């Protein structure tokens, strides 16, 4: 098994840090003065309407897009200062689950999942068991030889998750992982994300506009003993101890940032309407 990627992060420091980040395209500014932090083990849910810049934020966090101003520090690396060749190396240490899966349609499931291992010239004897292990985790081992066009939308997302976690990255970005899926399949995907968070300690950024998924992550945890999803414990004062936090984007800016209860109890008219 390959060594787990190292984190050049000072203990106690946030794993992901955005400092006054702005980016725009021909159509105008997409993100303006975005600042937030994600600590190890945390899941930050990025909420916002369609076109609010959630995907752009994730791509900036992965170094796929370079901001016009501000700093993005991930695992101790300032992505805004890095050259593309160094960014390629950095990205091998994170996982990214794209909106529609973004599987390579000319490769079968096994080749998609093992893509990163083959790029790193990992021996074939080591590749197959690791691919099978990743596919078993997402309950897709039967699809080993299938091509992406033979899979349903939900199956593609699960294979995409397997591809993202093949190298056991400490950080995974999810871009609308349940978008366009039926409720049952969405629940399967959310359970997988909970397992990665609670069993593997994966830190994540998750962009979505589906509130049920966001609150599913905030209110539930994966219990390894019973091997099932259980509600997160609440103390007598109604406080939850969830590793999930929220960030709401509106008009290219951070509109709200905080914990589940703060979001739910907010009297802000926009947030009330957004949550209704």
């Amino acid at each position, binding site marked *: 098994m390959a060594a787990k990627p190292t984190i050049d992060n000072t203990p106690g420091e946030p794993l992901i840090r955005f400092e006054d980040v702005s980016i725009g395209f021909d159509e*105008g500014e997409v993100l303006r003065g975005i600042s937030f932090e994600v600590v190890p083990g945390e899941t930050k849910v990025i909420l916002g*309407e369609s*076109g609010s810049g959630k995907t752009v934020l994730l*791509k900036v966090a*992965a170094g*796929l897009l370079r901001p016009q101003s501000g700093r993005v520090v991930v695992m101790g690396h300032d992505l805004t200062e890095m050259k*593309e*060749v160094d960014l*390629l*190396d950095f*990205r*091998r240490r*994170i996982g*990214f689950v*794209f*909106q*529609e899966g*973004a*599987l*390579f*349609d000319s490769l079968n499931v096994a080749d998609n999942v093992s*893509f*990163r291992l083959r*790029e790193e010239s990992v021996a074939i004897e080591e590749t197959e068991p690791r691919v099978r292990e990743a596919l078993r985790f997402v309950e897709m081992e039967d699809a080993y030889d299938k091509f992406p066009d033979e899979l349903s939308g939900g199956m593609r997302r699960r294979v995409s998750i397997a*591809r993202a976690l093949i190298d056991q990255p400490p950080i995974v970005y999810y871009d609308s992982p349940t978008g366009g899926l039926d409720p049952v399949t969405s629940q399967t995907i959310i359970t997988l994300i909970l397992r990665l968070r609670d069993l593997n300690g994966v830190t994540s950024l998750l962009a979505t506009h589906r509130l049920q998924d966001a609150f599913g992550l905030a209110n539930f945890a994966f219990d390894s003993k019973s091997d099932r999803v259980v509600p997160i414990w609440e103390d007598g004062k109604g406080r939850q101890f969830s590793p999930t936090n929220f960030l709401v984007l509106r*008009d290219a800016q951070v509109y709200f940032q905080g914990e589940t209860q703060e979001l739910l109890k907010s009297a*802000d*008219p*926009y947030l009330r*309407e*957004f949550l209704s």
Partner: protein
Amino acid sequence: MATLTPKTPEYTKPSPIAGLNDALKRQILSLQSYSYLVGDALAKMFSAPRYPEDVLEQMDAIGVGSLPIILLTGFFIGGVMVLNTAAQFQRFGETALTGDTVAIALVRELGPTIAGLLVTGRNGSGIASELGSMVVTEQVDAMRALGTDPVRKLVVPRLIATVLTLPLLTAVADLVGLIGGYIVAHFTLGLSAVEFWNRAIQALAFGDLVMGLAKPVVFAIIIATVACFYGLRTRGGTQGVGRATTTAVVVASVAILVSDFFLGKLLLYWFVS
């Protein structure tokens, strides 16, 4: 009361000069991006990591895949040349020159140009649409997210494969063109095989062969890089893929014909005059 309706920016009609200025800037920026891609791809051809399997796969698609159309069109181009020139040669009683004319025209000019244009239509469009589809379905971003350089993985193998196969396809087009020319010359002018082939081979000098093989190398670089460039900058879903494919074929075809003129002038100066 807050609303979820996004704000629409106020529309102001741009002035014609500002529009022209923007269009010019866009063209210059495109040229800059294209030059950067060509330089990057050429530099990465000579450094690791390399993808020999991808190069072979592309050579198969471009070389073997294009062979039937090259054979067919090459044969008929040679034949039609003789058909069109036969009457003129008969008028001057110089039918023996048919072999010279067909050989020089095919090897210097028609073989490389026809092969280049056919590969542009068949493979340039294929490359642009394949990469365009990969862009709009985020496969190229996924590749970058997995730590792989798309220029190394997608552009360089296609560039190497096109540079290696187009000269070979041109040689095949030249040969079948000559065969087509001979068959038509035999039946229309009554030329014997010895008369035609002796003149055809003797007419060709070393410079002609250099011209005939140097041009496809330049055309191959144009086809692969233009197709990859337009494919990788595709925007706007499936409609964008169609637009990128059409633009790639048009730009590469025009670039081949324009560069053919200047290249022809240069190579004639070096090798023939």
